[in-house]
């Protein structure tokens, strides 16, 4: 350890005081599981929950990613085709060859799309070893690579040239050969490629430069880069691919780059599908598709937050996926029973005495749900462990079948609504909601069980349908049932039979208005539909142990994703103990003198006027510290007697150590104390200054200006 620095040396402006504590604490924390243990956990509950969480989240994430990929696929295809044809079918008569640029605007899912494209470009490379079949050679360019034009050129050229699998690297003398940022080197390399592999002009591989986060590049450098490259087309078949996240209409390229640069380029724009429609597609197909079954269903509050965040705050799919991720994490970390998500542990584990807390909790909940619902499960009260396991397994299957029916219901209601729209009726007012509309809002209502009125309304609409329309609707519903997975279809046998019967009951000749029959039929179908839908859309909370598979109404911790800087800073200063020990000190109020120095100073700051006299401030601070000191002495006095003039215990932290152990009426000690108070004041003041609470105006001597007002405690 170095010696203590000489703090009095005025020539030194900064000191480095190395951290001297042990590093063990942090290392210990780092490997602990992210899930908190609760008292109702099984002995290995947190581990089991973590496993269940990983499985559940992986399943959902895979589904979402494959959906996103499917959404991107057509545009990826177009882009690849465009790149492929970038040097064929060039318009004749142009005054000079242009540099092809593919400009991909993708505001919703920033990096995933361009990665998809890059993978496509690379995969063709890997599949076939023979060069003449390789249509592209690609390299990626990141804003950090391009601090200046030299490094940018080096990155581009190096990205292509460093491929020993294509062309052996030749040893070069760095001084007497071309510089590695000289485009002539790329020209030489490409010429050599062409000669080695006997490539014809048509099949020559395009050199694709993918520029990620194009907005972050320095426009001046990119201008030069484009200029240099444009001098060498079509000898070097370069294609630039720009990934933009700004909105397409005031085009970033047009805004930023001068006409002289734009004139060098042949820009093709591609818009990746974006906006709320994408989120709807992904969420509907993940959580409301009968063909897919996520392990954990998200509740209406989370879904609502997801929509709000997407439409209002951050329209990016990545952020939305993070929200779902966080919802999963929260579900598995706060709900101790979630270890039951996929499977039930064996009876050995459950019968172990250490599991009794869990069993207790489990039974209480089972009892609660048994009381609330009518005893339709008909299961006996589980009095043995195997019976309990059977009950849990039964609850799981019940929940999943219920949610499957909910998904069918949600699809059916969408189908009927869509039918009404195509028939020219208004249907339900899904579009006229305040603050934008989304089909996901309807899903929120379904999950909340608030769609009863809507279902009833649709039923009434169906009742009024004409025979011809009715037959179309029945046809559509029939097709819907046909397309369901077999396992689900067999469960809805009754409904299908009803539809079949109704279809056959419809009169053959539609033209003849047999109003009596058709209206009667419509009436019955309408009623049946309402009943059927209501049956399908029963709230998920009615099932036993639903908390395990459904996040329900538990609020989403939005403050974790999007905290308010100011509010948390003020809260930290005003109530520091809320942050330190989370559970124990709930509701305990601390007197001012018990607070840390910065908080004391901040409280006094709040009491002051617009300008604060620093000396007055210091005095009030000193007063508080005196009180604090007295308190400490009182506390320490009995202990000191016990230890009998020994040094005070180190339990209270550093500050107390220095202040507590002083002899009482010692001049020397008093002097030391004064210096310490001043030092502590200075430090607290600096901290407030650093946080931006103080403005040094210099208008009045010894005064600083307060800039934060109106704190509502």
């Amino acid at each position, binding site marked *: 350890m170095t010696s203590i620095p000489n703090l009095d040396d005025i020539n030194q402006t900064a000191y480095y005081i190395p951290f001297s504590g042990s590093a063990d604490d942090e290392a210990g924390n780092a490997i602990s599981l992210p899930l908190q243990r609760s008292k109702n956990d099984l002995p290995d509950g947190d581990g089991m929950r973590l496993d269940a969480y990983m499985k559940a989240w992986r399943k959902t994430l895979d589904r979402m990613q494959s959906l996103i990929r499917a959404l991107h696929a057509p545009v990826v295809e177009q882009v690849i085709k465009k790149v492929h044809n970038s040097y064929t079918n060039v318009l004749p008569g142009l005054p000079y060859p242009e540099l092809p640029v593919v400009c991909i605007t993708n505001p919703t899912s920033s990096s995933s799309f361009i990665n998809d494209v890059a993978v496509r470009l690379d995969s063709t490379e890997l599949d076939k070893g023979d060069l003449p079949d390789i249509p592209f050679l690609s390299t990626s360019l990141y804003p950090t690579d391009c601090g200046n034009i030299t490094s940018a050129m080096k990155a581009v050229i190096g990205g292509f040239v460093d491929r020993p699998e294509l062309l052996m690297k030749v040893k070069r003398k760095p001084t007497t*050969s071309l*510089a590695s940022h*000289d485009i002539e080197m790329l020209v*030489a390399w490409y010429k*050599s490629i062409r000669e080695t592999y006997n490539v014809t002009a048509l099949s020559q591989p395009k050199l694709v430069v993918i520029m990620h986060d194009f907005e972050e590049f320095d426009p001046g450098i990119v201008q030069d880069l484009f200029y240099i490259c444009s001098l060498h087309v079509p000898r070097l078949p370069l294609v630039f691919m720009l990934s933009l996240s*700004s909105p397409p209409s005031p085009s970033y390229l047009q805004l930023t780059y001068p006409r002289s640069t734009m004139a060098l380029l042949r820009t093709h724009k591609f818009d990746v599908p974006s906006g709320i429609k994408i989120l709807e597609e992904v969420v509907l197909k993940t959580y409301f598709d009968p063909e897919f079954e996520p392990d954990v269903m998200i509740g209406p509050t989370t879904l609502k937050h997801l929509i709000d965040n997407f439409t209002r705050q951050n329209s990016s799919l990545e952020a939305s996926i993070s929200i779902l991720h966080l919802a999963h994490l929260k579900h598995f970390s706060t709900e101790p029973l979630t270890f039951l998500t996929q499977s039930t542990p064996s009876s050995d584990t459950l019968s172990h005495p250490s599991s009794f807390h869990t069993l207790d909790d489990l039974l209480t909940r089972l009892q609660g749900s048994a009381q609330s619902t009518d005893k339709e499960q008909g299961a006996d009260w589980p009095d043995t462990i195997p019976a309990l396991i059977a009950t849990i397994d039964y609850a799981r299957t019940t929940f999943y079948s219920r949610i499957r029916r909910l998904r069918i219901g949600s699809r059916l209601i969408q189908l009927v609504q869509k039918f009404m729209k195509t028939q020219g009726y208004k249907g339900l007012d899904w579009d006229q909601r*305040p603050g934008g509309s989304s089909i996901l809002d309807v899903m929120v209502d379904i999950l909340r069980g608030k769609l009863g009125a809507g279902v009833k309304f649709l039923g009434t609409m169906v009742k009024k349908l004409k025979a011809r329309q009715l037959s179309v609707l029945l046809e559509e519903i029939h097709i819907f049932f046909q397309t369901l997975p077999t396992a689900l279809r067999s469960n809805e046998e009754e409904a299908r039979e009803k539809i079949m019967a109704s279809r056959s009951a419809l009169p053959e000749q539609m033209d003849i208005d047999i109003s009596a029959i058709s209206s009667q039929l419509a009436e019955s179908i309408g009623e049946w539909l309402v009943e059927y839908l209501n049956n399908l859309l029963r709230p998920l909370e009615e099932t036993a142990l639903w908390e395990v598979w459904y996040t329900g109404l538990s609020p989403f911790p939005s403050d974790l994703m999007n905290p*308010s800087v*100011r509010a948390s800073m003020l809260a930290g200063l005003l109530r520091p103990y809320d942050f330190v020990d989370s559970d124990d000190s709930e509701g305990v109020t601390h007197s001012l003198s018990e607070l840390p120095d910065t908080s004391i100073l901040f409280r006094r700051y709040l009491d002051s006027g617009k300008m604060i006299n620093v000396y007055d401030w210091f005095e009030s601070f000193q007063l508080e510290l005196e009180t604090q000191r007295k308190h400490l002495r009182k506390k320490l006095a009995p202990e000191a007697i016990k230890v009998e003039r020994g040094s005070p215990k180190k339990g209270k932290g550093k500050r107390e150590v220095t202040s507590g152990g002083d002899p009482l009426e010692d001049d020397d000690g008093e002097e030391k104390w004064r210096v310490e108070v001043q030092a502590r004041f200075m430090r607290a003041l600096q901290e407030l200054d650093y946080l931006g609470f103080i403005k040094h105006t210099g208008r009045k001597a010894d005064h600083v200006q307060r800039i934060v007002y109106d704190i*509502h405690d």
Partner: protein
Amino acid sequence: MEDVSEAHYIGYEELVTDLSTLLTYPPPFIYINDPISPRTTSMIVDSIFEKFIEEFPGGSSSIRAAKVNAISCFSARLLYDSILNSLASWEAQWDDGCANWNIEDDGPRWNENFDGFIHGLHALCAYLQDEKARKKGKGKQKQKSTEYEGDDVRLIIAIERAERLKDNLPELLVPLTRLAELARIDLTVIFISDVQWEDIRPPLGASPDPFFIDVLPLTKETITNRICSKFSYTSDDLEPGPYHPSLKGLYSHFISVLCDVCFPFTNDPQELEYIAAARWPGFVQPVLDEHRRKVTSESENEMNEGDAGSTLHPPTEDVRMRLSRIFNSSLNSAMEELYPRLTNATEWASANQPKSDLLAKPPGEVMKRGTLGSSLDKDEGMKSLSRMSKFILVAAFIASTNPTKSDLRMFGRGLDEKKRKRRATKATGKTKGGPAKIPQRLVGPVQFPLDRLLAILGALLEENDVESRPPAPPEYTIPGEYTDMETGRIGIYSSIMKLTSMRLLHRMSHPDRIDGPPALKCGISYDVALLLAKQLDIPLNDLMWDPI
């Protein structure tokens, strides 16, 4: 080939004669200034070099020329390498490690500094002289012994975009202009640039004054001739395509109309050529369609006619008039979209393709096709932004156009909930002395601190967003407290940063400065702001101090 260069030189005859004459006894430093189309000039200089070397006694063994680009030679090393390689007609080979030109394999390095470069030039000169002597020796054994003055090799170095030397390699500017003196060989340096020599001239008269050649802007007629003369050689296919020789007459008419329309906006021949390339295939398509129709119907009727029927005849005057009437209006829109490169020629051409068999239809039926709707997708463009980002942009627009002092009057609310005070509209027509005040919207956006943006954002949210946002949690009891909380969230800051990276907001203060709030500037136009405000139901015009 002759034809090609002739077509190239139209309009630049003066430059060609000047430069060719000069190069026979060249001054050490020539400055060619073409403010309109430096690219064309540089192409022409290239072909002058080629022709000149061809015609020069001794050919390429007694004169060598190099043209380098000051943008692609952004470092001194690149400049030296390119000049030497190009003078030596040396092409780097990958297989021998991209070595530069040198006399022997382990020769000295020429690209280290200017001194090395001069040595390189000397070495090159000596090498070329040797080669020349060897060639001559082979050809004429008799004259071997005689000291022949013509052994000297003349070097020409042209530097394009020379204005960039001033930024990239300022230390080289003076030595390059004095290269002939420094190297003491027969050498000429030519700068080609679109700025005046006065703008890049080094201070204190360090450089000798060059021989100036100014390229004058071409007249409309010259440009028309120039573009028309290029027609013949761009057509090489026998299939009647848009560049079929029979269509040349129509083409020259087309070009003259095009130049009439576009010349007032640009007199860069390349730009006009670009627009012509985009419009011509569509313009001529009806003629080709007609021809194809005729051919197919003829081949159906009489099989024996053969080739005679399939030749494309120049269209009649009547057809020409009809085509002009149909397409002339589209020339303007082509100009508007292609000159600023809102789209590219290929895409514009395919988007504005006329319907097939246009000439077969009666004139009344011929619909004018709309141009690519750039205004159409404008509405869609901003949709991808989140609601909060839109609010931020509108707030930024207001902050950038309204004076700071007006904020309180615009957004302030008294206790009595009085309607906001508007500035009394001044009586017009009264002009006082002194400079007239320029309206804010013409001055351009002013910068504002982040705090002001957040304050205006809060006011906007409080006024226009209460209905659509999620209901406030019950703990917020004071009016405006919830909005206050919302504007302080990380999400807002990150949105602002994101918008800055999209250049919809501009950050004016240095990113490294940490004291004081960052200063920003709005990057969207009034139209875009109005569009966003409409989407958000904000009465933007009411909130502007100086409404339009």
